[in-house]
């Protein structure tokens, strides 16, 4: 039994950390933020060159054939670096495509993993929630294919995606539809996110023509593919939060050691010590929950679904707390724009709600334990 990362996994972590801090220091993240260019191409090609896009996918489709623990390692480092860009969106979309046995998957996946093609998932209806049963947007028949009209919300990085995988209904059945971002009738409206390093969009579909072959999956296959892809994406979001917590942890402990008030380091005050101890407890517990979820999902453990919901609920609650305590220990300086703390607080804040906040995840857990 080994809970810690294996040597190759640790190596992956070191590589990711070094690469990100070399190419994408926070100063550069801020430059992109300032001009709203969170999807810069140079960024994306660097990431893709490392093989991180679809690193958990089969070699046959351009992946590295690694597991979800490795995906978590990379996503954690993305969070620790507060990386902008469509990594989460594309990971989600690629995972979804990989679950679908269709020619389109085989066609698209190699260029996605190569970083040439970006994709995202358009899941949630306007006024919807994360529950698949509340997806109502309809494909309407239009010989020879279909038409799609409606509005999807909270779509990650829609603007820079080449492909939208749109989750809709074909009469009562769930369906996954391939829609090129540039198709006639598709328009994206950016919703400025609290986290300026993460772009969220409303996407309107106005009589968009869908060929029969672009309905990639329908019914049970669509349902289970979406569910599984959401689990992977949720895991990546947990990992990002964990990485952000880790940055706050390191930064706050160091500040507590060096900042002096009343002639002694503030870390010698019991109140500050206890804040730091709580930050540590929560960060390490989030680590245990997240990596366990990764392992359980990658190992088909019977409690994998529960483990994902637990990790997301826990990270959502404590990520926020860690952020708050990090700001508090820093005092005024931690509240400024100049200090990097708020980048991570905001990253955590959006992740807290993405794929369902703690309240929502607890309801998922309740469904599993009260059966």
């Amino acid at each position, binding site marked *: 039994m080994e809970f810690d990362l294996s040597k190759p996994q640790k190596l992956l972590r070191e590589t990711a950390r070094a690469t990100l801090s070399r190419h994408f220091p926070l100063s550069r993240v801020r430059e992109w933020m300032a001009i709203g260019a969170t999807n810069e191409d140079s960024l994306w090609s660097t990431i893709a060159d490392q093989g991180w896009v679809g690193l958990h996918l089969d070699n046959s489709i351009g992946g590295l054939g690694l597991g979800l623990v490795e995906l978590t390692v990379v996503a954690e480092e993305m969070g620790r670096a507060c990386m902008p860009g469509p990594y989460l969106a594309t990971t989600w979309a690629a995972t979804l495509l990989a679950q679908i046995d269709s020619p389109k998957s085989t066609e698209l996946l190699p260029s996605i993993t190569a970083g040439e093609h970006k994709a995202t998932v358009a899941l949630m209806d306007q006024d919807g929630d994360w529950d698949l049963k509340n997806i109502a947007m309809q494909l309407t028949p239009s010989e020879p294919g279909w038409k799609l009209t409606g509005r999807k919300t909270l779509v990650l990085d829609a603007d820079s995606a080449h492909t939208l995988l749109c989750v809709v209904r074909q009469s009562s059945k769930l369906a996954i539809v391939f829609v090129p971002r540039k198709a006639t009738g598709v328009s994206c409206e950016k919703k400025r996110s609290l986290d300026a390093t993460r772009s969220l969009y409303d996407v309107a579909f106005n009589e968009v023509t869908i060929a029969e072959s672009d309905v990639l999956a329908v019914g049970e296959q669509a349902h289970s593919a979406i569910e599984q892809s959401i689990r992977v994406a949720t895991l990546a979001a947990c990992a990002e939060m964990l990485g952000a917590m880790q940055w706050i942890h390191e930064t706050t402990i160091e500040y507590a050691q060096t900042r002096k008030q009343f002639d002694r380091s503030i870390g010698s005050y019991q109140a500050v010590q206890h804040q730091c101890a709580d930050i540590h407890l929560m960060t390490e517990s989030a680590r245990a929950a997240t990596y366990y979820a990764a392992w359980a999902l990658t190992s088909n453990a019977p409690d994998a679904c529960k483990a994902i919901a637990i990790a997301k609920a826990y990270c959502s609650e404590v990520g926020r707390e860690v952020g708050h305590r990090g700001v508090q220990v820093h005092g005024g300086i931690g509240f400024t724009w100049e200090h990097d703390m708020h980048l991570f607080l905001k990253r955590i*804040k959006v992740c807290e709600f993405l794929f369902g906040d703690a309240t929502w995840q607890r309801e998922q857990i309740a469904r599993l334990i009260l059966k």
Partner: protein
Amino acid sequence: MVLGGRYPSRQRPVGWTARSLMDLTLSAQELQFRNTVRGWLQANVPPPWTRPLRDSEAKREYFAYLRDWQRTLFDGGWAGISWPKEHGGRGVSIIEQSIFQEELALAQAPDRLGVIGEGLVGPTIIAVGTEAQKQRFLKPLLMGEHIWCQGFSEPDAGSDLAALGTKAVLDGDHYVVNGQKIWTSFGHVANWCLLVVRTDSAAPKHKGLTCLLVDMKSPGVVVRPLRMMTGDEESNELFFTDVCVPESNLLGQVNQGWGVAMTALDKERANLGTGLYLRYKRHLDSLLERAKTMRRAGRPITEDPIVRQKLAQSYLDLEVFRLNSLRTLSGMSHSNAPSPEGSILKLYWSEMNQRNAQLALEVLGLPGQSWDFDDGRWGYNYLRSRGNTIEAGTSEIQRNIIAQRVLGLPRSY
């Protein structure tokens, strides 16, 4: 409303009579005061400012708007109402002051440009200033000609104010000031600054400090706006390089500045809570209204039992703050002085506002935190609330004060 009128004497329920003398209604005199204030405000409050403050031109105009409002207040006799009459105030009671704040908020009057001047600098000048200083500074302050800021905190002296390092050296009839200040609200618009400097480096920390009244147009003063995590430039850094301050602008005695600064801060802490309550009440009311319009997964979110819990919790938390404020106000109306009990209010509202800003995001969901949803106010409120437990004395400091000054526990180490 914080301060109620009298309730209609409805039929009392059978079984008891209300002979309680604890009484939360206003006296006839207080009611009359409220009517006077309300009448004046109805006639004099300008239309609300609605334009965005994106460019410096708009900001300049907004500043003029606020200064005009201060002048209107002064002309009507409503500036510095709690000050003694001989210094241009109205000498009202603490409850009347609270009524005034409440009416300002209800009338949606403009923000007060002179809060630091009226609440902190003026009372300190009245307490320890020379006659000449009173003559020179008090009236322009009330008129809005002088806008004041305070130069207390420094990058290395936050909670530990006594550790500050900005130096002033006496050179003939003036002090030469060098150093840096931070967290200076209104620094970008102020023309005067209440500055705490070190005049004796050899003395123990608390003993070598002095307060100066500094003209912000003096050569060598540089103001740099400080941006907060909300994106707002709500505060400033001040840099002093060989700034000359006439000796006549010394406030209080030389090397006695610690006591002067503490006097000033105690006055600052004496926030009556009324204005804050009404601000947060507006937030909550608009959250309730917003929530009533929203649907999620096919039903109004206000039918979701968990959303209902969260809204009710916010409501009750705010209401308990209102009652704490009322109780503190009632206590202060006897002593007519601020007390360390003010730390309870500060601790309460700051943590309450953090809880409620978070709950609002939970109620509204991810779309609600976007900068494009309701002008981004929910995300903004959340971020801004994180500063509440830091500004004006961190929660750690407030708990220390309660433990030591209210409960009488020994000084902690």
